[in-house]
């Protein structure tokens, strides 16, 4: 390739000066960028407005292509469903039979649970949601794991609210624009989630590893209690995520915990449900007249 025309600058004073000025400008630019980064370190949400503009401007394109993306995603599953359909059918029929009795048992348990709750005068925790949207894009080239949600403050979405799909927890809202919101996925290293094992409630803390997996570490260090195949759900500690949202499934045991695969894959989730912050729910439950001796079972801290 040919060298660029202004180098070496030779005896021309003008060329020398302009090259020097270019260096000065570039280094000044780098210092300026460094300052921006320092401001970002001090106030990570400082430039949120600029990012919001970026997300809002490109959201129409992402929305337009979203249905196409999802139909392409479905294509693989739909095609593979045709193979070994007969064997699958037989297997599923057997499963349905087995499940029917379990469902009846579960219904009975649910009724009993309700009766016992009424007996204790416990208020049922709200299971409502704030809004339902779709994930329309993600930061696919950055090690930060963020996704863009198709709804924003026009649906009363606020920072910190958890987002879940039908299969489980997706993440939480960290930036809200007029018609879009940024979701910090649970696979981001900066998104710790208080969790527990569903079978016996062993408390643990989960956080992302940025490669599509999450790391689950038990709160009580010592013997590693996890086994491959364990289902992990949110525990409701910390007051952000409500309890019993499916979180991940353990796939590998490591010395101080376990690697788990999130149950909800944001790429395939048909919709994303924005939930209210759990602590607020707990607060509302607590806000019943004080003379009644009530301690909500799901509250993060026991009432004094």
């Amino acid at each position: 390739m040919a060298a660029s025309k202004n180098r070496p600058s030779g005896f021309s004073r003008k060329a020398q000066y302009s090259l020097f000025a270019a260096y000065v400008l570039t280094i000044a630019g780098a210092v300026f960028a460094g300052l921006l980064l320092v401001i970002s370190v001090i106030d990570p949400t400082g430039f949120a407005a600029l990012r919001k503009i970026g997300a809002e401007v490109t959201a129409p394109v992402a929305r337009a292509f979203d249905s196409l993306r999802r139909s392409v995603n479905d294509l693989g599953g739909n095609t593979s469903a045709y193979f070994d359909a007969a064997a699958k059918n037989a297997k599923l029929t057997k499963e349905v039979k087995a499940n029917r009795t379990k469902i009846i048992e579960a219904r009975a348990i649910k009724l009993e649970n309700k009766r016992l709750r009424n007996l204790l005068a416990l208020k049922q925790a709200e299971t409502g949601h704030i809004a339902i949207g779709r994930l329309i894009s993600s930061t696919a080239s950055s090690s930060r794991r963020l996704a863009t949600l198709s709804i924003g403050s026009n649906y009363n979405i606020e920072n910190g609210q958890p987002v879940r799909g039908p299969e489980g927890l997706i993440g939480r809202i960290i930036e809200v624009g007029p018609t879009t919101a940024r979701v910090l996925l649970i696979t981001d290293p900066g998104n710790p989630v208080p969790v527990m094992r569903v079978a016996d409630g062993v408390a643990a803390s989960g956080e992302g590893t940025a490669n599509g997996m999450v790391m689950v570490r038990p709160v009580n260090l010592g013997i590693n209690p996890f086994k491959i195949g364990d289902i992990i759900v949110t525990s409701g500690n910390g007051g952000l995520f409500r309890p019993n949202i499916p979180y991940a499934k353990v796939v590998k045991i490591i010395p101080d915990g376990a690697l788990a695969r999130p149950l909800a894959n944001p790429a395939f989730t048909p919709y994303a449900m924005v939930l209210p912050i759990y602590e607020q729910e707990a607060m509302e439950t607590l806000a019943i007249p004080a003379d009644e001796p009530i301690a909500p079972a799901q509250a993060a801290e026991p009432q004094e």
Partner: protein
Amino acid sequence: MKRAGGGFKTRQAGPLKKSPMAVFKRPSRTYESRLNREQSRLSMIAIPVASVLLGSMVTAMPIIETQPVLPPLGLMIFLAWRLLRPGLWPMWAGLPFGMFDDMFSGQPFGSAALIWSLIMIALEIIDMRAIWRDHLQDWLIASFMIVIALFGGLICAGLVYKARAEAIVLLPQILLSLLLYPITVRMVARLDRWRLST
């Protein structure tokens, strides 16, 4: 691709008829508009800029990934233009392009601006040392810069958000970027020809 010879043959076959339908005869029209014309200054400047900006905006497409696998296309197109046409942009061009990239990448604001500025300075120094280079050397230089930029991005995100991913996470993305770079150069070269021929 059209050959110039074909155009001359049609011109020499007979005098050009000035019928109203002559406008729709492709060869004469094509070559009349392409001979002795002024290059469009707008497309000379806008095509490279637009290609980098669009590369940065690719993350807005509905690609949802749980891990970073999409190559940093904005950076790759930027590097390809810089290595293909060293005098095209001033040295400080890394700052505005990087700031634009920061708006879309999800990285902390200022990280790409800083990294791209440093890359421009590094490339300037490399240009002074190694003046005549071939494609393989450019690929090597670009690979080095892409790896540095991805790790730099990881470190910046770790600085700002106090939680950093393992470096191994970047491996698939790095491999994909390095293998995709020659194709990017081809595309940029095609864009360059279009830029200078319109």
